[in-house]
């Protein structure tokens, strides 16, 4: 079974600084998707960024980028120029591509605090 592990329950960063959130996963599949979701206090789940495993190039979305290390099964999220609005829970998630289960498997989350 696929598992997703986020080893940092909480992280903090100064406004305008950079922070990296860690995620590792376990799968026997060769192709899959990885996601980072943001959950602010409103508890809505907001997609931050996604990565397709067959693509070697790391995904980027404005201030958000990932470091995808397929062999190490690692998928970290880097937030540059942190803003107060980035404060939230961040969840790493996995889903298979062809065949198998299409469900998302989530990690336990990392609570990010942004200090002014």
């Amino acid at each position, binding site marked *: 079974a696929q598992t997703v592990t986020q080893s940092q329950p909480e992280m903090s960063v100064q406004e305008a600084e950079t922070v990296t959130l860690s995620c590792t996963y376990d799968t026997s599949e060769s192709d899959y*998707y990885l*996601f980072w*979701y943001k959950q602010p206090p*409103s*508890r*809505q*789940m*907001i*997609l931050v960024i*996604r990565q*397709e495993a067959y693509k070697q190039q790391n995904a980027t979305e404005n201030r958000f980028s990932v470091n995808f290390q397929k062999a190490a099964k690692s998928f970290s999220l880097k937030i540059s120029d942190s803003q107060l609005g980035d404060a939230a829970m961040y*969840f790493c*998630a996995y*889903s*298979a*591509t062809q065949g198998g*289960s*299409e*469900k*998302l*498997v*989530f*990690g*336990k*989350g990392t609570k990010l605090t942004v200090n002014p």
Partner: protein
Amino acid sequence: EPEVTQTPSHQVTQMGQEVILRCVPISNHLYFYWYRQILGQKVEFLVSFYNNEISEKSEIFDDQFSVERPDGSNFTLKIRSTKLEDSAMYFCASSETRDGYTFGSGTRLTVV
């Protein structure tokens, strides 16, 4: 931008009562899901629905739970006899393919 709509946003129910949580997925999406998140814990998969039938369900999704897509637009989750431990945030999600999940804003269910 298309969105997944969930109603109600908050529901309080007495233990043992039946509740129906409602969702309107994005219209051209083919896959539908329910997830739940107990306060302070991770998001857990409940069930997926494709081609008018359940395609997968978790061990949480026991006989107390059922899903329906009664009219081609709504997607509902029914909990037959609620327990205190069913108190959680319930999220509906839909996707056209496996890389494009869109979540609703959730229904906070409180069982008293």
